[in-house]
């Protein structure tokens, strides 16, 4: 039964990381320049099943964070110091709608796993008092 804690725990941390990435995307929705001088690119996490070798059930882990390759938003603003020769400013390719949906989905999944964790905890505590 202790194994169930690991499974739910892995899901909690994976969903929390997804939430982190979403927060980063939303916060940087208007960042015209990152550390590399390029506009911010939206990031997405990829989930992967995390099972021990030979096991068919297991938790979940984040296998990687990928950058969205969709084109930057371009806005005509010649007075902006970040504008290029034609007077266009490249803005991040963050899609706020997509990010909101991602955020809600991550929150719901997180909640579901907390419920699983609580149920398993109370079952385990009951098992410890077996026969009394």
């Amino acid at each position, binding site marked *: 039964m202790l194994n169930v804690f690991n499974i739910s725990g892995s899901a909690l941390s994976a969903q929390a990381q997804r939430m982190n990435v979403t927060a980063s995307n939303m916060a940087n929705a208007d960042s015209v320049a990152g550390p590399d001088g390029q506009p911010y690119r939206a990031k997405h996490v990829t989930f992967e099943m995390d099972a021990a070798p030979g096991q068919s059930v297991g938790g*979940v882990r984040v296998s990687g964070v990928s950058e969205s390759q969709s084109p930057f938003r371009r806005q005509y603003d010649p007075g902006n110091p970040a504008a290029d020769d034609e007077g266009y400013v490249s803005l991040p390719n963050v899609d706020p709608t997509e990010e909101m949906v991602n955020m809600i989905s991550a929150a719901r999944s997180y909640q579901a796993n907390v419920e699983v964790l609580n149920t398993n905890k109370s079952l385990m505590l009951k098992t410890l008092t077996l026969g009394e």
Partner: protein
Amino acid sequence: MIDRLNASLNFYQQALNLRDERQKVLSANIANADTPGYQARDFDFRSELDQAVKRGGSTEGNGGLAMATTSSRHIPGQAPGNGSVSNLMYRVPSQPSLDGNTVDMDMERVNFADNAVHYQADLQFITSRLQGLKQAMQPE
């Protein structure tokens, strides 16, 4: 005497074991609800319980490796298999999803709640069984 006690509790023990195992499988399904390509698993409780009771608590036949014995005086050994479930199946999705994930959250939640209640019921049965046995052993 002790093996009698063991036999009277064996059924409940197997049932509780399987409920625990199913709890794990359903938790894994819920944990992987957003994993692309993950396929939801479950098993047929009834047939697994049948098998487990027939095996009678021995670890034989659950996928664990048996130790090779080269002398008649060797004690045979059996490694514990990966769980007591021998036939873990895949759920048939009611609605296909684009990323190949077959977890239906509603179904998993219902099954999870159902399993949790059954687990508690099993605990209750064992407790009353134990209390009955205890009472039978009282001197008065």
